[in-house]
């Protein structure tokens, strides 16, 4: 970004689940219509926007490691897309709305499903260490070593973690099913 541009930025905090790509895309488009253009997002869902002229900008999310590799990003640029922001595997591409037709990165359900499967794989893999730790831990000695309040604390943290994970996984599976059935795409 060049220095002569309006530097004023605002930040927002807004949580989204992994399966809520369409919701994020719609929200970012609404923001752009108000002149707030995405420049940064971090894994804790803090979004940074640059104030500029209101514009109808279409956002699309892609997920996957190395998805912004040279060949792919070149193709995206050729097709008129710009990488607005990226965070932990997520890539936020945007392009101005033109000719009344919403541009898409993925135009068939098979490639859309693959995007969610990549996310699902990462999610499940990231949970494996915690899961293995839970299974392998010596629960007997844990119970005798820890005081009751700290034991309750550990249990609550674990339960919260696995419930969140389960919700995220189920959300993704439902999203994949919706994408696969042609009526909703």
């Amino acid at each position, binding site marked *: 970004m060049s220095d002569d541009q309006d530097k004023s930025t605002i930040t927002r905090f807004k949580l989204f689940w992994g399966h809520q790509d369409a919701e994020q895309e719609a929200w970012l488009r609404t923001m752009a219509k108000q002149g707030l253009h995405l420049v940064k997002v971090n894994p804790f869902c803090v979004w940074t926007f640059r104030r500029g002229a209101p514009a109808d900008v279409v956002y699309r999310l892609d997920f996957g490691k190395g998805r912004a590799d040279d060949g*792919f990003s070149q*193709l*995206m640029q050729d*097709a008129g897309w710009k990488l607005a922001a990226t965070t932990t595997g997520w890539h936020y591409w945007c392009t101005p709305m033109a000719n009344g037709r919403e541009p*898409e990165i993925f135009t*068939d359900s098979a*490639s859309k499903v693959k995007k969610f499967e990549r996310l699902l794989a990462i999610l499940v893999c990231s949970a494996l260490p915690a899961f293995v730790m839970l299974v392998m831990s010596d629960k007997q000695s844990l119970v005798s070593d820890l005081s009751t309040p700290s034991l309750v604390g550990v249990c609550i943290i674990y339960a919260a973690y696995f419930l969140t994970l389960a919700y995220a996984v189920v959300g993704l599976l439902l999203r994949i099913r919706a994408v696969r059935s042609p009526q909703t795409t």
Partner: protein
Amino acid sequence: MDIDFAKLLPLSEATYYVLAALDEPLHGYALMQKVESMSQGKVIIGPGTLYGAFGTLEKQGLIEKVSEEERRKTYALTSKGRQVLAEQVRRLAIMVRNGQFALSILGKEEAA
């Protein structure tokens, strides 16, 4: 070379157009534009879908990378790709004939 047509066919509409557009070597964006004009705007292939299709088709040996300039990979049809396309066209031609036949019979019944 034996080709397992059962595994490769039928081609999806997008894949079919990718192969049919490669009567000359093309890079991704040129191919996207060509498919859109070939199909009279009916088939639009997004860059994400096309990039995935390139990867799959290259792995299946239906297309091959012939050059790379400024990060733009140019692909061409292989002889296997041409044979798969030919077999798909042959099957589509049968489908079209059958459909036209059925419609002509129905048209005559309506007229009678």
